[in-house]
């Protein structure tokens, strides 16, 4: 009886989050920003259609897709590692994508409407995934995979710094740094089409691992005894995350904290069930990213805040609260 009860609660939570996501998306479509500060509405029917199609819609769609990807993959990785501190960047896909993009900048190919930037990022994330498998091997254990991810992160970060070091001009270095802060400004529907072919297979792989994540709650041995090979679950989550997050970073730069904070916040609402956490985390991530990006456009005139900066500003205090509450729990 209670099982159906909690299943019902799960769908109510998803429905509530879905309504909030739609509301946030509508808000995001309505909000604009000019040199004079925030604007509301579209300003005339003909101009409005262009603004909506060329500017607002891609931005809102990307906020939903990228936020959702980060939330979903964060939840799946935390389930796989059975550790609430795991986040999508852990496996090196984000930093690999960032390096790919930075190299495109370095060679001066990123100007104008060039798609070389996101394509370079996609190549970078796929290369880091290939490197992860070369380092960790397909059959090895979880700890080896995480260590390989950390090694790739460190190595690609070092290479990124190297590129910055050799940047042709201070202006180029600044441009690279700004891109890495993560932003949804000035994106078009082309970026959506570029990210989706990586995101959708990534999502599907992660979702296919849902039951395996539940089984892993009881440890790898018991999961295997229930018919869920932990290596298969690991492969699904690692590959799915690398693809989807690689696609996300390729079009927006690095957006932190969403994949860490959202699953964490929602976990008690789903009874700590790893599979029931996936869909709410997707919706929660989409909601958070859309709201954060709308907040950016509401800021007073001046240089536009970067999305990655806002999510980190929102995420860090949350994290402090988490530290304090777990410290209090430990003291009791």
């Amino acid at each position, binding site marked *: *009886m*209670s*099982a*159906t009860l*909690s*299943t019902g609660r799960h769908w109510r939570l998803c429905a509530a989050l879905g309504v909030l996501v739609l509301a946030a998306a509508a808000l995001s479509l309505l909000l604009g920003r000019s040199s004079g500060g925030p604007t509301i509405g579209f300003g005339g029917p003909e101009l409005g259609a262009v603004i909506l199609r060329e500017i607002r819609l891609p931005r809102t769609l990307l906020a939903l897709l990228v936020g959702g990807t980060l939330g979903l993959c964060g939840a799946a990785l935390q389930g796989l590692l*059975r550790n609430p501190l795991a986040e999508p960047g852990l496996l090196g896909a984000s930093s690999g994508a960032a390096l790919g993009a930075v190299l495109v900048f370095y060679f001066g190919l990123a100007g104008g409407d060039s798609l070389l930037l996101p394509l370079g990022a996609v190549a970078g994330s796929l290369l880091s995934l290939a490197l992860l498998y070369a380092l960790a091997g397909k059959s090895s254990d979880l700890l080896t995979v995480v260590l390989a991810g950390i090694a790739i992160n460190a190595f690609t970060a070092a290479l990124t710094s190297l590129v910055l070091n050799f940047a042709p001009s201070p202006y180029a270095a600044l441009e690279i740094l700004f891109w890495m802060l993560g932003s949804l400004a000035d994106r078009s529907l082309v970026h959506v089409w570029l990210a989706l072919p990586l995101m959708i297979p990534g999502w599907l792989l992660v979702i*296919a691992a*849902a*039951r395996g994540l*539940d*089984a*892993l*709650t*009881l*440890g790898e*041995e*018991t999961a*295997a*005894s*229930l*018919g*869920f*090979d932990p290596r298969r679950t690991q492969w699904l989550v690692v590959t799915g995350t690398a693809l989807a997050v690689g696609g996300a970073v390729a079009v927006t730069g690095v957006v932190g904290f969403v994949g860490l904070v959202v699953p964490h916040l929602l*976990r008690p609402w789903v*009874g*700590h*069930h*790893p599979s029931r956490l996936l869909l709410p985390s997707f919706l929660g991530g989409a909601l958070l990213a859309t709201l954060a990006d709308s907040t950016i456009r509401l800021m007073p005139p001046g240089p536009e805040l970067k999305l990655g900066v806002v999510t980190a500003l929102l995420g860090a205090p949350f994290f402090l609260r988490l530290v304090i509450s777990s410290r209090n729990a430990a003291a009791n």
Partner: protein
Amino acid sequence: MALVTDALEIRYGARCAVHPTSLTLEPSGFVALVGPNGAGKSSLLKALAGLASHTGTITWQGRALGTLASRERARTIGYLAQASTVHWPLNARDVVTLGRLAHGRYGVAPTAADREAVEWALAQTATAGLADRSVSALSVGERARVLLARALAVRAPVLLVDEPIAMLDPFHQLEVMGVLSRYARGAAGGAPALVVAVLHDLTLAARFCGRVLLMSEGRVVEDGTPATTLSADSVRRHYHVEPFVTQHESEPVVVPWRSLADGVQRARD
């Protein structure tokens, strides 16, 4: 129509955990797997559950375990790991429901059969009162019973349990041995089943189990009724303790009484 091993051997690198072992375990009955620490009991149990790489063959009803699809194997053989952990603070009923994953199709909510099996397993282990509490708030013994309920909820024809009573108080030790015994006889509401339990309590093993396998140094060295396997001579030889063996209410009592000098010598080596 049995769980049969033929020349089953388990190696961890150069070390041989289980030497070639050929066993036939009848499809119903409560079998105790006993022996000193490091004898290879858990390794053998894991191999029987299809969880340890090995040479030789294991067959269930004539079919090699390796040829069964993983989900079919999971439905056939339930396994309770030694001192297992629960990584997220799920409530106890959700933990028990995880046992039904072996039957579940993806994305489908628990069926009536799932729910019935879960409530049955909770009732068997007297954990229905804990069902809505978070497992992180349970005592070690309560959690051990919830995890046993998880393994029971699979309702597999073969149930392999590794030290199911190690964490329990005397009352619950007796209760759990009773549950496993009823499950094996098919008296718990279901068909008779094969239950193999790794145990350290020799009296409970002798009283509840019809067959006792005694392992030592990677080999099954005694195999038979409790009276023969757990005789004073056998306990002396394999456990290196002087036992106190008697009967109470015409049931065997085997109590380790004093460690023997040859065992002390071996422990030092």
